[in-house]
Every structure is written in structure tokens, then in C-alpha cells.
């Protein structure tokens, strides 16, 4: 097994863990965490491909990861504040309770 | 000869490394670098506790510790033995694992940041390319451990304290980072070693410390205020305000775990002070070129002690702020001022050297400072009052 495929397998595993979490849990915060985890698995892929890829000097993988981290941070901030707003409205952060779009 | 004394620790390590088989070299080298730091800073912690208690005692017309050892200087030993032998009380409803991990995390995080602090010429554990970033990244782990402590104790006071502490630390971390950006801009590097090396040059007898520029001075002041808040020291000691929420997030800790928190907190204070020295006060560099014969590490620790004394002095003088005032100060004054400071540093960089750029940059910062402080006080009506007397 080459080093690259090790990283790829690990990243696939992390992605699946995040996916399983997002699918099996009903707590909004946990689902958000699962999504963050999937995003991070993708980041690991970027870095691994950059490191073992043919042209590391291009820095594309690193750049993509930096942007992805900032997007993830923004996503977390907005996502959590949406959860807060929903909680204030329905007094629950269980996704099953958020079945109405009416205010 | 001064050269040898200056480099004695480095030479000693080289000499010792000569006897190590090449297979073990990386491990032994790391141990030889890390262990002195692990010894030096807890020792400084011990000295500082005595110094603080004696200093505060002087300010308050009392003696401070003077029973254990000469002038009470063995007091930390007695304190250490006491806290080691004390019963470790864990609240029945506490989350045991998290309760145990919190002090460990804070101490580990506090120790990790010393990896990038150059305590002398060629004396740094790891010359990281992104050293300053490492410092702030690891420093942010402290917030997590504070939360762990506050939440796992299952006490209202500790939770209130932890929430206060986290809100305060996050708010003041932003000015802290922004204040150091001016130095990174000027040095063109995130490596602490490079930053110090750049400051360790002299024009005539005067050094090139960043604090001797308008933006550097502003940055230094912002950094120190934010550092006071980051390390929960007076007047920003709300998270542990003993008259309000007793001891804040570590109210339910006793014995050795409490001592660990204490240690972690002081190590954090030393680390931020050391970072301020590294960024603004020339690190281990001597203040005048004719004083370079004094070893570099002596200068570093002298500057560190000076900053610690300033902390103690402030603690002995000022009352504590309130939460909303603290937040207002961080977001309405510190943050905009540090942003303007970055702008001023940019102006400095692109203007030709001379009196004109001194004037322009000083003016920019002074105007910003005045306007922001007026804005901060706009909705507040406090003033020194005069009193009337009944006839």
C-alpha cells in the first residue's frame, strides 16, 4: 500500500463516519458536526493529493484547503446561529420537530 | 568569552549529542531541548508566586510570605507539598473524565506554546515556519479546557465563570492576533526566530525593536491589554472574580488539580508576555549595542520579569471591570484600533523614511484613538462629581 492510498482510505473512512453520523442522529448540532467532518475528509484528500501529486509547487491543494476551512468556519457560524434561531422558535433542536415551514 | 557564555547551553547540547548513537539522535535532541524549558518555566512560576505575594504585600502594608526559608522564598515548595497532599474532591455529579482532563489539557497547551519562543540566541525548541500561528493555534486550546472545567463541575458558579472566561478570551484573542500582525507585516515572516533576528540589529547604539515605532508601540499596548485579558488577570479577572462568582471555572477543583490550573494560568501569562517580548521588545536582544556582552537569555528573562512585575503592579491597583464594559472595550475600541494600526503600519512601510512618516502615522493613530474613545464613552455619562452640602 502506497502512502497516498493510506491517506485516501483514511479520508474515505472519515467521510463515511461523518455520513453515518449525519444520517443516524436527529440532533441538529450533531448533524452539522457530521457535515463538518465530511468537509474535513475532503480537505485531507486535497492535502494528500497535493503532497504526493506531480506538481506540489503549484500549491493548489493547500490553497483549496485554506479556502475550504474558511468556508467551513462560515458555515458553522451561520448553521449554529440558524439552529439557535430555530431553537428559540420551537424550543427543540431535534430535526424531527422541525417539520413545519410556517413561522 | 562573552560569545561562549552566550552560547553555553547550545554548545553543551552539541557536546552531549556527540556521545549519542545516531539512531537515537532525534529523540535525545528533542529531550535535551524540551527538558530545560520544562524545568525553567515552572521554576519561574515558583519564583513569580513568591514575587507576586511579596510584591502585593509591599503595596498593601503587609509582609507577605516570610516564614518558609530565607525571606519566604521556599514558600512555593510548601505550597506544592500542601496541594499534593490535599484531598482531591470531585463533586458527586461531576463528569469525572472531563473533570480530570481539563487541568491536564490546560497545562499541556500552556507548555506547548513554549516550543516556538526563542529564549536566547539559537535557543528555541522548534524554529517553525509558521511559529506565530502555532502560538495562537495552541493557545486557543486553553479556551476548550476552561469550558471542560466549567461544564464538568456541574456547578452554576463554575459554568457562569467558564462562559464569562470563554467569551472574554475569544473577544480578546482577536485584538491579540491583529496587534501582532503589524510585526508580521514588518518582518515578512511568521517565524519567531526571524522576527527576533531582525530586531537584534543596531543603528548606533539603539536597537531596531518594533516598539520604537508608532505602530509598534500601539501594537504593543494593545497586545499587552489583550494579554492581560487572555490570562484572566486584574482588571480583567472576571472569570474568577472572587467576590462575584468565587473562583469561576475552577471553583470545584481542589488539591493537585487546582495547582495544575494555577500553573497553567501562570504559564499562559508567561507565554503571552514572552510573545510580546519576542514580537515587540526584541526578544533576547540587548537594549543597547554596548550591552550585548550580557548573555541573550539573561535579557530575555529580565524583560519577562519586568513584564510580570507590571502585571503584579496592575493587580495591586485596579478594580475589576464588568462583563458588558469588558465586551464593549474589546469590540468597540481594541478591535477597530488594531485594524487602524495595521493600516498605519502599511502607510509606514510605503512612505519614505524620515520625520514625515513619523508625523503621519502618529497622527493617524492618535486621531483614531481619540475618536474611538469618544465613541466608546458616548452612551456613558460617568464623570467626577461634586457634592453639595445641606445648609
Amino acid at each position, binding site marked *: 500500500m502506497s502512502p497516498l492510498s493510506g491517506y485516501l482510505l483514511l479520508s474515505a473512512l472519515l*467521510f463515511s463516519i461523518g455520513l453515518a453520523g449525519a444520517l443516524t442522529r436527529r440532533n441538529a448540532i450533531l448533524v452539522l458536526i457530521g457535515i463538518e467532518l465530511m468537509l474535513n475528509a475532503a480537505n485531507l484528500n486535497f492535502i494528500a493529493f497535493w503532497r504526493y501529486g506531480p506538481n506540489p509547487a503549484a500549491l493548489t491543494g493547500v490553497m483549496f484547503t485554506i479556502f475550504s476551512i474558511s468556508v467551513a468556519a462560515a458555515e458553522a457560524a451561520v448553521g449554529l446561529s440558524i439552529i439557535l434561531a430555530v431553537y428559540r422558535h420551537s424550543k427543540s433542536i431535534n430535526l424531527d420537530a422541525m417539520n413545519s415551514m410556517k413561522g | 568569552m562573552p560569545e561562549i557564555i552566550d552560547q553555553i547551553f547550545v554548545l553543551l547540547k552539541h557536546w552531549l549529542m556527540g556521545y549519542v548513537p545516531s539512531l537515537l539522535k532525534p529523540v535525545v535532541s528533542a529531550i535535551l531541548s524540551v527538558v530545560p524549558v520544562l524545568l525553567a518555566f515552572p521554576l519561574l512560576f515558583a519564583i513569580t508566586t513568591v514575587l507576586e505575594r511579596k510584591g502585593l504585600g509591599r503595596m498593601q502594608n503587609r509582609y507577605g510570605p516570610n516564614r518558609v526559608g530565607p525571606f519566604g522564598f521556599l514558600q512555593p515548595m510548601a505550597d506544592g507539598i500542601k496541594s499534593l497532599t490535599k484531598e482531591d474532591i470531585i463533586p458527586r455529579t461531576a463528569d469525572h473524565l472531563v473533570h480530570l482532563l481539563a487541568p491536564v489539557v490546560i497545562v499541556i497547551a500552556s507548555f506547548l506554546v513554549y516550543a516556538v519562543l526563542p529564549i536566547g540566541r539559537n535557543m528555541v525548541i522548534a524554529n517553525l515556519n509558521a511559529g506565530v500561528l502555532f502560538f495562537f493555534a495552541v493557545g486557543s486550546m486553553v479556551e476548550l479546557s476552561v469550558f471542560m472545567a466549567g461544564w464538568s463541575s456541574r456547578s452554576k458558579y463554575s459554568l457562569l465563570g467558564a462562559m464569562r472566561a470563554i467569551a472574554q478570551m475569544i473577544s480578546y484573542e482577536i485584538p491579540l492576533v491583529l496587534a501582532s500582525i503589524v510585526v508580521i507585516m514588518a518582518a515578512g515572516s511568521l517565524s519567531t526566530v526571524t522576527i527576533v533576528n531582525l530586531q537584534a540589529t543596531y543603528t548606533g547604539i539603539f536597537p531596531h525593536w518594533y516598539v520604537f515605532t508608532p505602530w509598534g508601540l500601539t501594537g504593543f499596548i494593545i497586545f499587552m491589554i489583550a494579554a492581560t485579558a487572555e490570562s484572566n488577570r486584574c482588571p480583567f479577572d472576571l472569570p474568577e472574580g472572587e467576590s462575584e462568582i468565587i473562583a469561576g471555572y475552577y471553583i470545584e477543583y481542589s488539591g493537585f488539580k487546582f495547582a495544575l490550573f494555577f500553573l497553567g494560568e501562570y504559564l499562559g501569562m508567561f507565554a503571552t508576555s514572552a510573545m510580546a517580548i519576542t514580537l515587540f521588545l526584541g526578544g533576547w536582544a540587548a537594549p543597547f549595542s554596548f550591552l550585548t556582552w550580557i548573555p541573550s537569555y539573561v535579557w530575555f528573562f529580565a524583560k519577562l520579569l519586568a513584564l510580570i512585575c507590571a502585571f503584579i503592579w496592575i493587580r495591586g491597583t485596579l478594580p475589576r471591570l464588568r462583563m458588558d464594559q469588558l465586551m464593549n472595550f474589546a469590540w468597540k475600541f481594541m478591535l477597530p484600533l488594531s485594524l487602524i494600526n495595521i493600516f498605519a503600519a502599511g502607510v509606514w512601510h510605503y512612505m519614505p523614511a524620515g520625520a514625515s512618516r513619523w508625523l503621519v502615522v502618529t497622527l493617524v493613530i492618535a486621531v483614531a484613538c481619540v475618536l474611538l474613545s469618544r465613541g466608546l464613552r458616548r452612551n456613558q455619562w460617568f464623570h467626577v462629581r461634586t457634592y453639595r452640602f445641606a445648609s
Partner: protein
Amino acid sequence: MTISFFIIAAITIVGTAAAMSLKNLVHCVLSLTLGLVGLALLFLLLGAQFVGFTQILVYVGAVAILAVFAIMMTRSAEPMTNLPPASFRLSGVLIAATVFAVLAWAISSATRSLPSQSSQPEVSVNQIGVALMHQFVLPLEVIGVLLTAALVGAAILAMDETGASR
């Protein structure tokens, strides 16, 4: 495949798996932090120093704290009692396992065509800075706008409506 890779990978997997399976939300966030620190260590192992530290700064210093605040504010720190039914959970795990199986098959079958160059690329913060300011200046600006929008949006969303009218 060094030994450090396996140790760090184990930490990461344990942390993230615990984050997705523990009952207490605060424990979930704390173990997620462990997993993300492991991920940051992997980045360091791959030679991406800047990204690794940024990862710690953003995830441990900001996202984890934010999640913790959200948990405290929504009063969900108690262990969850009403878990979804077992069939629901099982189907979720099955889907994830299938996805992993497919990905793993794809990776293992593509191993031969994967590049295996292993010279450590030297990348300094300087280079990243220069690249950000020249090659990637447009994405950087967009990210700046995005972050500002997210900051304002999050603040407005989280603002107490009743508090504003009070």
C-alpha cells in the same frame, strides 16, 4: 506508511467515531475536537504546516467553542434519551458503510495509477502568502466577502428578536 501515520490515524478515527456515537452532546464535541486535532497532525505529517495550524486555530479555537455555546444555549447538554429507532440508525450506518465500501474499492483498484512521488515539497508561509496575493487573489477576496456576510448573517440570526424589540 510510517508508524506515526498509524498512531495519528487511530486517534483521528477514534475521535470522530466517538463524536458521532456518544450520547452526551458535549462529549461529542470534545471528542470531535480530538479527531480534528488528529487531522491537523496529519496535515503536519504531510508537510502542510500552515494548513495544520489554521485547522487547529479555526476548529479547536472557534468551531468547537461555537458548537459548545450552541449546546449550552439550546440546553441540550443532557444525554439524549429519545434516540431514533434502531431501524433508522441501522439504515444510516448501512448507507455509510456502502459508501465506504465503494470508495475503498475505487481507491484500491486505482492504486497502480496513483502518483507515488514522495519527495517532501518545501512550502513556506511566504510562498502561500505570495500565491494568495497573486494567483489566488480573486478567491481570497470572495472569501473575505463570504466571511463578512457570514459574520453579519450569524449575528443577525442569533440576535434575540424579542430582545431587539424590548
